[in-house]
């Protein structure tokens, strides 16, 4: 009998909704080694006034924000450190949309990415009860205790696995169709297979996983990744996990020559607001995310968006920013890049220079992905 292959949960209003990200704090309980937020601190927190001005500007300018739907996204640092402020912001958004008869009143989400440590706290749970149907919450857990605690640590160096995993059952109970985001750097490559299976084992059925964009890859890392993914493919297929689990490393659409000239990244289509009220094309461009370059604001909550500053982001395409090798690459599809990372790593102040540090890792992923689909299709028919 032909079995179903599970699909990852659909993203609400994907490519229809505008995403507006509030960086409510630059603080976090953790100091994850691979985190691109290099300037974490306990000083910078968003004030309600900055949030209110931003909301007033965004809801009051339909010509600039014509989208039918909106995702109000909250990140940090760790957003739940500022749950009271977030609660106040969400109340204000709802009352504002209601008083203006704004179409977003019927088409909005509040979205969170959290390390999960405070998920079970009374304040967070009260907030979830109050806003339940409008919420989307992703909890980040990296896999086995060994892999998770390798990078996701407190400033003392202590791992955070236990503090996150204890809230996973509650999270899955409240948001059953959720996915977690796993990040892989060089030294935790050997733990990918067991980590994905571990996450499946604790009830997380959908795993969005990626290798970091930074220049961290060593000779031979691609072989480790490929071996890990082939091993994972075998387990997923042999144990028929594919019927109700997904892992984003495996996708039928990756590893082909490119058929379009689209930019991979959505920077500029979204809007991030930092604690000071400055607007950025995404949170990866905020000052505490950049190592080598000055943050390039595209406006602020007092004066609005400078549309000239958004033009480079919105006209950016694949060919203009990529080296010839990437343009002609026969396994180009699915190869990701981050505009903020590109900007930070570029030789000049430009978003038009694509970083290609993960080239070998992508190719290794494609080889394992080919193996996965070859086996799976042979088993159940394509």
């Amino acid at each position: 009998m032909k079995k179903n292959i599970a699909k990852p949960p659909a993203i609400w209003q994907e490519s229809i909704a505008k995403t507006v990200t509030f960086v409510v704090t630059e603080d976090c309980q953790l100091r994850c080694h691979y985190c691109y937020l290099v300037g974490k601190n306990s000083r910078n927190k968003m004030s309600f006034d900055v949030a209110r001005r931003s909301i007033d500007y965004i809801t009051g300018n339909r010509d600039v924000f014509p989208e039918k739907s909106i995702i109000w996204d909250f990140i940090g640092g760790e957003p739940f450190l500022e749950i009271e402020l977030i609660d106040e912001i969400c109340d204000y958004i709802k009352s504002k949309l209601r008083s203006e008869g704004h179409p977003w009143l019927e088409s909005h989400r509040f979205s969170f990415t959290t390390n999960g440590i405070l998920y079970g706290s009374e304040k967070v749970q009260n907030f979830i009860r109050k806003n339940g149907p409008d919420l989307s919450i992703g909890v980040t857990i990296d896999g086995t205790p060994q892999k998770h605690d390798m990078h996701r640590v407190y400033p003392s160096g202590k791992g955070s696995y236990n503090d996150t995993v204890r809230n996973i059952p509650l999270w899955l109970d409240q948001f059953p169709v959720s996915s977690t985001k796993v990040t892989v750097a060089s030294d935790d490559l050997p733990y990918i297979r067991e980590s994905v299976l571990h996450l499946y084992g604790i009830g997380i059925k959908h795993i969005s996983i990626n290798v970091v964009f930074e220049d961290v890859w060593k000779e031979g890392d691609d072989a480790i990744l490929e071996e890990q993914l082939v091993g994972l493919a075998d387990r997923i297929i042999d144990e028929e996990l594919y019927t109700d689990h997904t892992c984003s490393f495996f996708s039928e659409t990756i590893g082909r020559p490119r058929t379009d000239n689209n930019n991979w990244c959505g920077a500029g289509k979204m809007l991030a607001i930092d604690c000071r009220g400055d607007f950025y094309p995404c949170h990866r461009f905020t000052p505490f995310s950049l190592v080598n370059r000055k943050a390039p604001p595209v406006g602020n909550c007092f004066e609005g968006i400078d549309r000239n500053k958004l033009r480079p982001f919105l006209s950016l395409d694949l060919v203009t920013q990529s080296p010839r090798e990437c343009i002609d690459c026969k396994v180009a599809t699915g190869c990701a890049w981050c505009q903020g990372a590109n900007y930070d790593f570029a030789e000049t102040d430009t978003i038009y220079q694509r970083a290609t540090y993960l080239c070998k890792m992508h190719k290794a992923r494609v080889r394992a992905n080919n193996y996965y689909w070859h086996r799976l299709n042979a088993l159940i028919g394509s």
Partner: protein
Amino acid sequence: MIDYLIVILEHNCAPFCCYDVKDRSRNELISLDLLKKIVNYAIRERLSVNFLYGSTQLPPEYEMVIGEVGHMKMMPLGHARSYENTVFIIDGEEDLRHVHVLDGGDLNNVILRVGRDDLVSFGATVKSLIGRFKRLNVIIKDVHRFTEEAFSVYERQLEDVGAIVGEEYRKGNFIEVNVLTDRVFLTNMNNCNAGTRHLTVAPNGKFYICPAFYYKNEDNSLGGIDDRVEIKNARLLELEYAPICRNCDAWHCKRCVWLNDAVTSELNTPSHQQCVLAHLEREASRRFLERVGTDIGINDRVPTIPKLDYLDPFDVITNRSVSPEERERHFAQLLSKPLEDLPVKELLRQIYRTDPKMLTRLKEVSCAVVDLEDRE
């Protein structure tokens, strides 16, 4: 490939483009030794030189060195000291009081710098200069300050200039006014090309993409006259790597990379104001050609300029209601307009001569493999 150098002879020289001279109190003249070195470099690299003058009267030994290399001089009209190989710069009322200087000798090329707030008299200024130039390069100094109101003023003034120049054409006086006539006769982009066709040397002996980059931040040079000049991410200066510009047929546009950088923070991305101004000029050119083309009998020699329903190509590129195919069709048609009357066989021959590989690729995308079993 670099064809010529721009040499700033003194820090306080006359700006000839849209930048301003920073710190005008500095009266730093290039040293004679450095000037000799630059001229020697230009000769060895087979480059011509545009020398930018200021108000200082150069010592005779400087002029002798300048005379050793093929060159143009660019100097403020108010301080005119030369007529041959000279482009005069008119920048404001003070220079306009010296227009009589243009009456002597052969007609010269003239640069007219105008600001947004001077545009109300733009047509009248052009009229006052008729008979005093063979080519007028109009430079708008403060493109980034343009608002909808200023666009309307400029549109009206361009219409006036079109009428003035049209009269001259009917009399057989084929003068050039860049913002009006260039687009009529161009079939490809003809931009400033700073950093790709020319580089600038400042009085400190350093290279810059153009004078504007020197005045913006002289510490950010491309290297010294004795060094290897390196432009990082130089591809971003090229048309091919400018997603908005490569889909545009405002071929006369300066495509000023300094202004791009200053307003949008990217060398390859023009501001909205830059695109709208270029398209207002394009539309003025279109109307000019429509009115004058038949009268002077050039309609069969220059392609018509298609009417557009937008002033900023960015709006088309980012318009989600336009499908990628529609967009592709529109831009392809626009950019190939000057070729559309060419017979296909002739066009294919030219493609073969230019790049035989292109024929192979065209066949790959256009010719289906014959399936002998499919008799339908």
